[in-house]
């Protein structure tokens, strides 16, 4: 880098960054200023636009508007390589390392030092060793396979790779999500060393205590806009939470006709459910016609609880009872037979046969019910599938269309239809509106209300606090594998829930 920046100089200025996707305005004028040698924290709820912003910074997304100034010069980050070249490195949550290669090979992946096409192995290893020493971890052998390292070790390799590119700015997206407490201390020491050398860090985390510990300044994003910039990292929690909440969620939650909870009929009773290192002692009930939402950060154990109730994960202890019948742990067919249905978090990889017809997807869990002596009654399948599609207003209501060709919202309806054709009693919805555009969200919300009105017990998980509050009758708040609070949605505010999931305090607003 020709122009050296002194610590404290402005390294990067982003102003008025706009990025739209079909149906979503993800960034709507974000400003961010980062100085050399500081840890700049980015704060915002899920869906606020943080991930899109770092992708713009990493060169993975091209902004539709706004200006990026790097070391005083207007710049475009046309590609990830271009970003790396000027000195912006990004550590994504899912580390992009090759497990089978050595530490040194990973650090220099894509820019191996070579002579006449032969990798200069000795040189590469020596350089790698130097980098690991700079990160304060000379004990990690650079010849070791990366897959054999701990999560913290892998993170260090990822950081070394950033340094190998002579990064002046390193973006860290929830780097502590996968780390144990002592590993976090380690990471923070490395961060402190880096900033002392003038490297700037953009740090994303939901944990306020971390931001307090290592952050210098904070920028808060809401609805794709910067609502507060360059705050002191010791700004009181209440103030930060206030800035983050009150998102004007573009979707209007449909008016709930009436609370349809039939409290005399506990359909799902979960008691003392525990899975080592995921969650412990989780107990709750869901009544017929009731919508219960689980709020919490990613990694709090929400999806894990849902999947364990469903039997896709085996509980270490605890019981799941559906309509008075205890389910065999770790047995999905038993749960399905008892009337439980799951719309999993990752629609495409966990729920759908993308190459097959909507009808085939809808009857997938009910093939025996649609057959006589093992022979499928395809006519009846098509008829019921069509009726269900019409009931859900899935468009186009053609049961023979390939699922791949449907929009995200309609694909989600196809997953829900799978459980409707078998009259399920308990519906587990994991992030039901992920990847669904704004218009279709409202429809899904209405659909969930209708399902509850028809007597189904609905248990849903969402990363978006307003969604959980707007949709549910009752809310469970989880943090780090434990159930923190249970309260009627009407008694909770967004700020209160945010405060609980981020700080762990049980103070009610």
């Amino acid at each position, binding site marked *: 880098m020709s122009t050296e920046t002194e610590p404290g100089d402005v390294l990067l200025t982003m102003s008025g960054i706009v990025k739209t*996707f*079909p*149906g979503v305005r*993800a*960034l709507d004028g974000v400003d961010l200023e980062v100085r050399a040698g500081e840890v700049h924290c980015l704060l915002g709820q*899920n*869906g606020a*636009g943080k*991930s*899109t912003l770092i*992708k713009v910074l990493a060169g993975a997304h091209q902004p539709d508007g706004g200006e990026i100034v790097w070391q005083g010069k207007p710049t475009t980050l046309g590609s990830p390589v271009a970003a790396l070249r000027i000195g912006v490195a990004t550590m994504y949550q*899912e580390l992009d390392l090759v497990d089978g290669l050595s530490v040194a090979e990973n650090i220099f992946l894509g820019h191996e030092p070579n002579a006449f096409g032969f990798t200069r192995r000795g040189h590469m290893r020596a350089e790698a060793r130097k980098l690991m020493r700079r990160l304060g971890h000379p004990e990690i052998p650079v010849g070791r396979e990366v897959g054999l390292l701990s999560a913290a070790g892998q993170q260090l390799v990822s950081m070394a790779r950033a340094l190998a590119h002579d990064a002046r700015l390193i973006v860290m997206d*929830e780097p502590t999500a996968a780390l144990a407490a002592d590993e976090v201390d380690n990471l923070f020491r490395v961060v402190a060393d880096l900033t002392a050398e003038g490297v700037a860090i953009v740090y994303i985390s939901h944990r306020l205590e971390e931001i307090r510990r290592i952050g210098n300044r904070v920028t808060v994003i809401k609805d*794709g806009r910067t609502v507060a910039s360059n705050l002191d990292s010791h700004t009181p929690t209440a103030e930060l939470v206030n800035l983050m909440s009150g998102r004007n969620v573009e979707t209007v939650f449909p008016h709930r006709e009436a609370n349809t909870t039939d409290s005399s009929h506990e359909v799902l009773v979960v008691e003392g459910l525990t899975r080592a290192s995921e969650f412990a002692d989780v107990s709750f009930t869901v009544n017929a016609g009731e919508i219960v939402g689980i709020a919490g950060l990613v*990694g709090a154990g929400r*999806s894990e609880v849902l*999947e364990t109730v469903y039997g896709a994960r085996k509980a270490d202890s605890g019981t799941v009872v559906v309509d008075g019948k205890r389910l065999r742990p770790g047995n*999905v*067919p038993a749960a*399905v037979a008892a009337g439980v249905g*799951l719309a*999993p978090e*990752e629609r495409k*990889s*966990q*729920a*759908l*046969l*993308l*190459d*097959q*017809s909507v009808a*085939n997807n809808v009857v*997938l*869990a009910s*093939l025996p019910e649609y*057959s006589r002596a*093992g*022979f*499928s009654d*395809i*006519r009846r399948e*098509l008829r019921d599938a069509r009726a269900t599609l019409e009931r859900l207003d899935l468009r*186009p209501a*053609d049961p*023979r*269309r*390939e699922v*791949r*060709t*449907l*929009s*995200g919202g309609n694909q989600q309806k196809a997953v829900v239809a*799978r459980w409707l054709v078998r009259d399920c009693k308990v519906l587990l919805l994991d992030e039901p*509106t*992920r*990847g669904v*555009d704004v218009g*279709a969200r409202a429809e899904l919300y209405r659909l969930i209300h209708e399902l509850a009105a028809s007597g189904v017990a609905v248990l849903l998980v969402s*990363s978006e606090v307003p969604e959980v509050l707007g949709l549910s009758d009752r809310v469970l708040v989880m943090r780090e594998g434990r159930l923190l609070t249970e309260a009627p949605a009407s008694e909770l505010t967004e700020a209160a829930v945010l405060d609980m999931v981020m700080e762990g305090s049980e103070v009610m607003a």
Partner: protein
Amino acid sequence: MSDVGEKSSVDKPGAAPGGPLAGEEPVRTGPTTGVRTPSGLRLDLRLTILTGVLVALCVTGYVLQPDSFLSESNVSTMLRLAAAIGVVSVGMTFVIISGGIDLSVGSMVALSSVWMTTLATQSYGPWVMVLCALVVGLGAGLINGVLIAYGRLVPFIATLAMYASARGLAERLSDGRTQVVEQQGYLDFFRGDLFGIPTLIWMLAVVYVVGWVLLNRTTFGRRTFAIGGNEEAARLAGINVKRHTAMVYGIAGLCCGIAALMVVARTTSGSSTNGMYYELDAIAAVVIGGTLLSGGRGTLIGTLIGGLIFTVVNSIFTQNNLESDIQNIAKGVIIVVAVLLQYGTARNRKT
């Protein structure tokens, strides 16, 4: 279950709706060809191309040897030679649609053919011989299936082990000798005709029809497609994926047992060298027939035509006294061309 990021970074909101269908066509059903939406049309296009290739080859054969090629005896010989591999290919189609692979089919044919022709087995008469071949094939296939489904071995590895060991066991049982069939009743039936058509051809036809119904009209077949298409989705829909996978390999083994009956009838003996390279021919037939090696998609009709294409090529070469080395080169070219053609149609599908 890891976080994917924020909702704002939705990968492709509102994926483009599929292209309009080219008009309505009469209702057809069935999970693969029956998905008569964009893919249905093109699967048919694919089959049409394949059939065209087959017809072209037949015409070539006829032009080269107008007197003998399409004669009743040559057609009958062709089909009888193709019958065993054809039956093995049915099992292979199930395995590949379920997302797996079976390298051991040739060895399982050898083992079944040897076991059913040992002196001890033959002493119980022809029906016990038949039963023996079926049970041995089914058993070996189930061992594959259990190792893969419950032992979590990769299909390639588990069936590679069976590939080596089944033929080894066959050699040991037969002491490396060819075991001649003494039971005349067996030979009379399986080498004979039924209503003027060789028994072997009837068997081939029955296996295909039963296989087709099983694959396209039953819960079992549709779960096979589901598991190959998206195993996790199948599991989360409450399908017992492990048991099903084991059964699919059992079917492949059973087909090998049936093929062994046919090979023993044709050669009047059982030998550990039977079924050599069947796995390659079967996989080739399945792949030429348009079944995806990654699973979830495929047709038995494609496999049938794919197998017939090879049979006709064989016949053309032998009838014209051409070297077998050129024949193998031709087969290689056919595989590549067939798959490239299918890539072409697959690309159309995506746009």
